[in-house]
């Protein structure tokens, strides 16, 4: 029994030391580099979620690695002889402890994830479908941007600005933005990486995602759902600019689109363009 606990003590000590080293490293050294950054409030939430999850996973990884490493060195057969190990079939307290600990960790993560998702992050930048459960305060005044996925490009409509359509995306800094993502043909996924937004563009669906921009900068836009031949090429670069910069960009777009505007369909959450199926 004394031998047994000395194994356990050694493993425990190695685990505690390595964890004590790893966790600060993760939080302060690796953490700032974890995606997607802090261009928006939601992106910051995702970054902190990634840091927390990495920090929670680290002790688990280290426990297994330390234990297995120790076991591989110490609990091995000496020489070529086949010897029997200790016939232990189980240990009820350990099993109970393990179940309680894993369940508690998992429950805590799920509760915390739900809180971040619903209460603080208002959907965490993910697509929430046409009826978001908990729109953030000030959602009425949010800048509405419709993202239209089509094979193979993104276009954007701004219902607050005469529903004009543009081929690239500028957003004002420090503003709540309400994305309405939809598709004209097949399923795409609107992924604005630095903004921390991902929402599937599904035909016939108005998929809403909220994001609160913070500081100016550029962000990349990709398609994250396979949509056919040029799926990999469906990327763009968008800008978060100052409020004044946004206003002047919008003015120039409105001027450029004045001729074409009359041909656009009335603004709607989703569109069903022709042909709707196989045509003869």
């Amino acid at each position, binding site marked *: 029994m004394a031998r047994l606990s000395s194994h356990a003590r050694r493993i425990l000590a190695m685990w505690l030391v390595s964890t004590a080293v790893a966790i600060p490293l993760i939080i302060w050294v690796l953490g700032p580099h974890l995606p997607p950054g802090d261009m928006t409030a939601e992106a910051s939430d995702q970054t902190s979620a990634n840091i927390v999850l990495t920090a929670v996973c680290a002790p688990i990884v280290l426990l297994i690695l330390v234990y297995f490493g120790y076991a591989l060195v110490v609990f091995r057969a000496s020489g070529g002889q086949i010897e029997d190990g200790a016939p232990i079939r189980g240990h009820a307290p350990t099993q109970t402890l393990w179940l309680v600990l894993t369940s508690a960790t998992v429950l805590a993560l799920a509760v915390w994830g739900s809180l971040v998702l619903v209460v603080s992050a208002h959907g965490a930048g993910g697509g929430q479908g046409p009826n978001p459960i908990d729109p953030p305060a000030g959602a009425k005044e949010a800048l509405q941007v419709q993202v239209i996925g089509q094979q193979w490009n993104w276009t954007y409509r701004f219902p607050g600005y005469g529903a004009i359509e543009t081929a690239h995306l500028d957003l004002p800094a420090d503003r709540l933005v309400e994305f309405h993502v939809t598709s004209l043909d097949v399923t795409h996924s609107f992924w604005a990486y630095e903004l921390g937004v991902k929402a599937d563009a599904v035909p*016939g669906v108005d998929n809403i995602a909220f994001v609160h921009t913070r500081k100016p900068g550029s962000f990349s836009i990709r398609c994250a759902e396979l949509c056919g031949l040029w799926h990999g090429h469906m990327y763009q670069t968008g800008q978060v600019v100052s409020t004044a910069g946004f206003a002047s960009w919008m003015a120039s777009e409105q001027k450029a689109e004045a001729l074409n505007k009359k041909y656009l369909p009335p603004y709607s959450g989703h569109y*069903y363009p022709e042909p*709707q*199926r196989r045509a003869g």
Partner: protein
Amino acid sequence: MSAEPTTTWIPAENPELEARIVSLGSYLLSAATTFFFISFLFAFLYLRALNSNGLWGGPKPGHHVPTTTTSGIAILACVLVSVLLVRLALVELRGSTRALWWPACAGALLLGLAAVAIQCWQYTDLGFGTEEGGYASVYLGWTGFFTIFTFGAMLWLETILATARRAPAKAPEVEKSVASFSVFWATLGLVEIAAFILLYGVK
């Protein structure tokens, strides 16, 4: 290796075990079949709830129910009576007199085939096209695959009848094979009830 024979028999287990295997297999097949049709049930409820583009029921309102509701009732009746006949045959086989099981099963077979035939006939005179909305899609898929499953079940029933005809078997063995079949056929009967209620009853 060369000592192996060219013809082997699948090693026979005792008949009781063989019957248990078939019986369990029938339950598992029924479970799989249920999940298969649950997909169509889900498709029905989901597409109906979504009603994309307002086209669940097709372009013309009230247009989507098959024109021949009577044939739907006929299919339902055929399947249900057939299921009951198989149950009756089972009761017969378990009872002291076993005279009626053969005609009951034969009748069940004919009714099952009649259900298949009526469904095929109905397709020729639907009154709506497959392209007319979500309901039309689910209708075609559900009834189509139900018909194929029914036909397969009838092949199974035919096997039981043919085996008994050729070599009059002992009652316990026939009883067990009919019991196994009855499980699967009753499952399909439940599927048909759900199909009838949803496809013909719900607008």
